[in-house]
């Protein structure tokens, strides 16, 4: 695969560490890094080479409010971290954050999963392992930046896997007939297009039609709102409860 070429890896790694990779290219590179340990090692080597440049930056004392804000955030987190097992299992050396950690699990996990699972649909089982790697992934987080849902898009055939990362029952109100509506937010215009409705309990594998695939391909991010079950609204009727960037895992790298 293209991303396994050492020269390209080295060019991406040094551009990334120097701050010359931007925006989505930067996010995509971070996602790639967690599926390719060799890439991460190159980044670490570049960090060790270049970080001495930052040594000469003058020190500036931050205002006391920064420390107070940090303390306010770590005290409850410290308690919560003890009880949440999967969070700890995501520990890796480079703390690019929950988003990237979840991406790593999703990308590596699903690639292996779909290939090896005997019950996979025939059209999936017949293709080579590279073709069943996900093309797009979005980790949707709640307002507290805690990951809630992972949406992964595959092609050949077009399909979507929606996986809740924790119990989301508290968000839904089945008695009120509300379900999760997933939307794609168009990259250039910001237009919100309905994708699918899901309920929060289990991992879902859903076929995607061409318009759905195009919506994913051209999206900046995916968001989730609560909507009436069964009806497909033209636009969200309430604020998003989850949102996350939709990352192209295979596209041409802008370096």
């Amino acid at each position, binding site marked *: 695969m293209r991303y396994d070429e050492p020269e390209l890896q*080295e*060019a991406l790694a*040094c*551009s990334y*560490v*120097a*701050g*010359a990779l*931007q*925006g989505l290219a*930067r996010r995509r590179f971070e996602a790639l890094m967690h599926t390719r340990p060799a890439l991460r090692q190159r980044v*670490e080597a*570049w*960090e*060790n*080479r*270049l*970080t*001495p*440049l*930052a*040594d*000469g*930056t*003058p*020190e*500036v*004392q*931050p*205002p006391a*409010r*920064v*420390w107070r*804000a*940090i*303390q306010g*955030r*770590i*005290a409850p*987190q*410290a308690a919560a*971290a*003890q009880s949440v097992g999967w969070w*700890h299992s995501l*520990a*890796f*050396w*480079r*703390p*690019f*954050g929950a988003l990237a950690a979840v991406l790593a699990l999703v990308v590596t996990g699903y690639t292996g999963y779909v290939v090896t699972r005997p019950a996979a649909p025939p059209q999936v089982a017949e293709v080579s392992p590279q073709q069943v790697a996900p093309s797009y992934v979005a980790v949707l987080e709640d307002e507290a930046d805690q990951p809630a849902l992972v949406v992964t898009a595959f092609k050949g055939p077009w399909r979507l896997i929606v996986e809740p990362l924790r119990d989301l029952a508290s968000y839904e109100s089945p008695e009120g007939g509300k379900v999760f509506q997933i939307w794609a937010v168009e990259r250039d215009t910001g237009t919100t297009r309905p994708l699918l409705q899901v309920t929060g309990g289990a991992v879902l594998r859903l076929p995607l039609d061409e318009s759905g695939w195009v919506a994913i391909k051209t999206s900046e991010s995916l968001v989730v709102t609560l909507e009436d079950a069964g009806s497909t609204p033209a636009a969200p009727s309430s604020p998003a409860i989850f949102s996350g960037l939709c990352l192209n895992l295979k596209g041409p790298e802008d*370096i």
Partner: protein
Amino acid sequence: MKSTAARDASDQLGQLLSRCSLGDQAAFGELYEATSAKLFGIALRILRREAWAEEALQEAYVKIWRYADSYNPGRGRPMTWMINVVRNHALDLLRRADYRAKEEEWNPDRDQRMSTDNPATLAETSQEMQRVLGCLGLLGEEQRDSILLSYHQGLTPTEVAGRLKRPVGTVKTWIRRGLIKVRECLDQ
């Protein structure tokens, strides 16, 4: 070669990090005390607005606290790890459209203290930094400027190209090839 004092300071930060990974908030306070002025300076240099730099600093330390147990001393010194946490946050903030849109609100005169690179500051720099600067000195002036503008100020290749009045493709190539030359020089 690293001086003994620098190595001791590095060991001390490593110990504080390992105490943080056990949930020791007092150790985290010491770590913040010892490193926050340096990290804030780095965030300010990239973001140039104090409010943004404060946000990046806050995010970085929350992350350092949460992921203290994943710091691996075999892969680099503690300061390298922490500096890159704050750099990544600052670069992410800088790239957000809503931050970029506020560019014109920035008044450069307000941030006089960030006009750096004076000899007094450079005299205090580490031997490692002198080595990297020595290797950068082997590059052409524009190539070196491209790398430093990108690294220190987080300018995109497009912005660097605008400033140097060169095509963006040229700037991207300068950065990549220049860094590969720096690597060869450092590996010697």
